């Protein structure tokens, strides 16, 4: 049996009485590629925020790599190997692109040698296609490049699990393929990936399993083709 790397049990999150997430169970296996879909405002990002420690769930527990991390601060989760990108890119605008990558290298991975950090940062930037932008300010990057920077920063943390929150939004078809190829390569290296995405083509191509959240509740979890055939999923996406 393949071991579980990330497991959330009965996660509930309320905002002033509004139930953003209701008893969500979720499991990601080692080396697995899972797609998380759902309409806008269904609670996908809230769920990711609970998983990564940006928000504390009101109920439920989270286990990562055989540790209970429900109360673990976000920075320590990152250090243990749980990395994410943000849906709306959140670069460190006051420092260069390379220094952006150096932050997780220094803090999440724990490199100390300045030379090793600079070299690894360059390798990662090449990997995400920002090699020639190393000394730029993130202020000068395009939306697409900012998404790549998000991805690069998550990769720099040398994660065991990568949560990619809409890294492909607004990209052209060939760029989507480029990112998919990168994600597949990372997955082949052993990183488990949770992909949150609206581009169905990408989700269907990439995912081994798909989880659907609608209005804060998990309504489907299974093989991509099976899930997409479910009536509830169809209704949530296409209307009555």
């Amino acid at each position, binding site marked *: 049996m393949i071991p579980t790397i990330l497991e959330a049990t009965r996660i509930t999150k309320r905002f002033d009485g509004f139930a953003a997430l209701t008893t969500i169970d979720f499991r990601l296996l080692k080396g697995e590629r899972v797609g998380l879909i759902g309409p806008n405002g269904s609670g996908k990002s809230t769920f990711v925020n609970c998983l*990564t*420690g*940006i928000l504390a769930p009101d109920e439920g527990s989270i286990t990562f790599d055989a540790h209970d991390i429900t109360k673990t*601060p*976000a*920075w*320590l989760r*990152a*250090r243990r190997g749980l*990395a*994410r990108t*943000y849906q709306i890119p*959140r*670069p*460190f*605008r*006051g*420092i*260069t692109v390379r*220094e952006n990558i*150096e*932050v*997780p290298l*220094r*803090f*999440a*991975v724990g490199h*100390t040698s300045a030379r090793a950090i600079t070299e690894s940062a360059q390798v990662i930037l090449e990997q995400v*296609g920002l090699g*020639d*932008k190393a*000394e*730029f*300010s993130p*202020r*000068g*990057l*395009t939306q*697409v*490049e900012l998404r790549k920077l998000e991805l690069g*920063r998550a990769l*720099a*943390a040398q994660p065991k699990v990568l949560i990619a929150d809409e890294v492909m939004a607004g990209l052209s078809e060939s*760029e989507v393929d*480029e990112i998919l190829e990168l994600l597949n390569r990372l997955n082949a290296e052993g990183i488990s990936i949770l992909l949150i995405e609206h581009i169905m083509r990408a989700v269907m191509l990439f995912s081994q399993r798909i989880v659907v959240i609608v209005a804060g509740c998990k309504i489907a979890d299974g093989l991509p083709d099976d899930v997409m055939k479910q009536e509830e999923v169809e209704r949530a996406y296409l209307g009555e």
Partner: protein
Amino acid sequence: MSNQAASVPPLRKPLPVSGRSRSGMAIILIGVALIVATMLFGSHIGEYYYLATYTILQFIILGTAWNILGGYGGYVNFGTAGFFAIGCYTTIVLNKIFPMPLFFEMFVAAVTAGLIGLGTGYLTLRLRGVFFSIATLALAIVLQTLIVNWSFVGGARGVYVIRPAVSGIFISYVQFLVVLMVGLATFAIFVAWAVEKSWIGIGLAAIRDDEAAAETSGVPSLRLKLIATTVSGALMGMAGAPFPYYVTYVDPATAFGLAIAVNSIAMPLVGGTAAWWGPVVGAILLGSAQQILTVTISSAANLFIVGILLVGFLTLAPRGVVGIVRGWKRGRR
């Protein structure tokens, strides 16, 4: 993709790496050189210049200390005067209990202010933005109220401090204080430089730009901010420790003065908060301008000038002198 990339001009070309560890040495060498110069040519300088220099040096330390939390970490501290006054009153208390060497008093002042910085950090650093700033302002007011009601240190009336005899190598006690302050300023600048270039500096920069994203990159933000408040508070307290010997009469209104809080924010902003030398340039610029205007026009013009310069810089050069110099360097290449 690559075509698109090429059309965006680079915003920041790499700065020469050569300055990286050399500036640390340079800071110390300049400090030592200034001390030697003061010792050699001290007798040719009038007492007034010593007093003026003391004030500027004091603001170099305060601005540099403020910048460690405010400039690098993005947490605006309005309570500089509180930490400065902790330094002043530590000296006064120690001096009242048992007169002892100023070096020891400075050390105790730095430790006390550092610990209060750490405590304040614990209580307030969960607050962000303007809420944090208001909390630091409140801290200064609470401390001032305590001092005003503490008769052992003179309460609201204030207290006189007698300068001890000065060692023979100095012409006057004021000259001794200036030499001491050059040393303290050198130390403070060196600390700020070391913080900026170390892992603490890059972590604080990440926190300043986006705290949540910093956390998800593994930055232990609370720990780094606590280091910053402690170091910053300790340097401010250290700057306050010699002050009672400089003015010889201290009352709460002076030690907690508005000018201290305003200047130690204005100077880094005018000089530029992105680099360790920003607050130094800002303090020299604003400090000398204030001294010159106090003599030539009136002492009341002091804060007025700070205000005008601050507004001018914030609208025309929001990144201060550091920003202007970096822009100019970029343009030349």
